[in-house]
């Protein structure tokens, strides 16, 4: 199940684990990425709080936690090579995985069609 936020993040949900990244639209807006900072594994995130930072040559942008939960895994390869986030933001360029406190938190998020029209 793929879900999207109005902060241009995507979540791929399997059971109570969500993989989180930035959308293709966001990646295009940011341009080439040169640095990313991810939350620590085990960190507890609150919805709406800054969870990660993605930086282009020009600017730093916060990536907000889309749901409450605990970080279970981060994409170390993307930290090593931030260009993979721009190159494949909805695939190999995922950012982190989070165990949802409450899967009903996904109900308010957009599906792919709704996001596509939102991001126009």
């Amino acid at each position, binding site marked *: 199940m793929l879900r999207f936020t109005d902060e241009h993040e995507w979540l791929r949900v399997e059971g109570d684990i969500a993989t989180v990244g930035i959308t293709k639209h966001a990646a295009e807006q940011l*341009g*080439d990425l*040169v*640095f990313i900072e991810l939350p620590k594994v085990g960190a507890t995130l609150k919805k709406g709080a800054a969870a990660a930072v993605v*930086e282009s*040559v*020009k*600017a*730093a942008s916060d990536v907000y936690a889309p749901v409450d939960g605990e970080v279970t895994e981060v994409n170390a390869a993307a930290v090593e090579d931030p*260009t993979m986030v721009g190159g494949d933001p909805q695939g190999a360029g995922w950012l982190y995985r989070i165990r949802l406190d409450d899967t009903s938190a996904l109900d308010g998020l957009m599906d792919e069609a709704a996001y596509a029209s939102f991001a126009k």
Partner: protein
Amino acid sequence: MPSETARPQNARTPLHALHLRLGARMVPFAGYELPLHYPQGLLAEHLHTRHSAGLFDVSHMGQIVLTPRSGRIENAARALEALMPVDVLGLAPGRQRYAVLTHDDGGIRDDLMIAHLGDRLALVANAANKESDEAHLREQLSDSCDVSVLRRALIALQGPASDAALLRLVPTLAGMRFMDVREVDLMGAPATVTRSGYTGEDGFEISLPEDAAEAVADALLSDVTVRPVGLGARDSLRMEAGLCLHGADIDETTSPIEAGLTWAIQPVRRADGERSGGFPGAERILREIAEGPTRRRVGLRPEGRAPVRAGAALFLGEAEAEAAGQVTSGGFGPSLRAPIAMGYLPLKAAEPGRRVFADLRGERLPIAVTPLPFVPAGFKR
């Protein structure tokens, strides 16, 4: 009424259609709609400029011409010397020079290039300041000079392959040195070409009529070595070259001495010089040359990979509570594959090798003070 209102916001340059045709991502900048980057992306554009040649639309910059009413160019040069700590009288015909317009308190009103075209002086000023520069020059120089603003395009061709690419179009430009200026026929249009730029690389800036700009840009881009480069890479290139951006690294509060621009003040304008002083801010500027400024612009290399941005406070110690300085430009240096920044530090801390700290998202990030430029210049002197 401020003349800023005379120019619509998001004005278009003569190369607007070209940018759209090339698929540029357009952004508002200094009242113009300009390319941030093209489909190739900022990093590739930056590196291409360092290795080959990049074409930049800098038509947003101010092109101002001073023509002496007396017909004697030295009268225009002398009048301009009253506004800047620069040897303008000593500028030879066919040569260009970097200059700063100063305020009475020694701050920098703008930085600009001055070219001696034989019977007149041609200035290139920052887009954000061009209206205020024009007003200042009219107010101060109208007795001696006609001040006119050119409606012309400005194309920068920068990088080690730019010489060969330009010579293929205009073989007669052979033999120009860094900071030479020539007026030539460029594909049937009267162009003014300087061998200078804002990237630290060898290169040229080409001033030409607006209606000739697209054909000339297309001709240059048809060369396989030349690719279009946007504002994003223009900024990262100038930062690696250690060049100041007015409004960021220099402004009305920084003196040229603090900014490390003492080299732009020729001995003839310094204490004991033949035309010592006589420019706005002379008292502070000459004192700082003699006694040293209290702070100085430095190069900064953050340890690790996180960029430090403009506005970040700088601390002399990891536990210091009081900021000692500030980052004025910061980001990522694609040629160095590392974060770079510039900022101001107290003179005692402004020594290469010194370690300072910046606040970054609540943590103290160690930063090495380094010499400028970060990337050696490729000028053909």
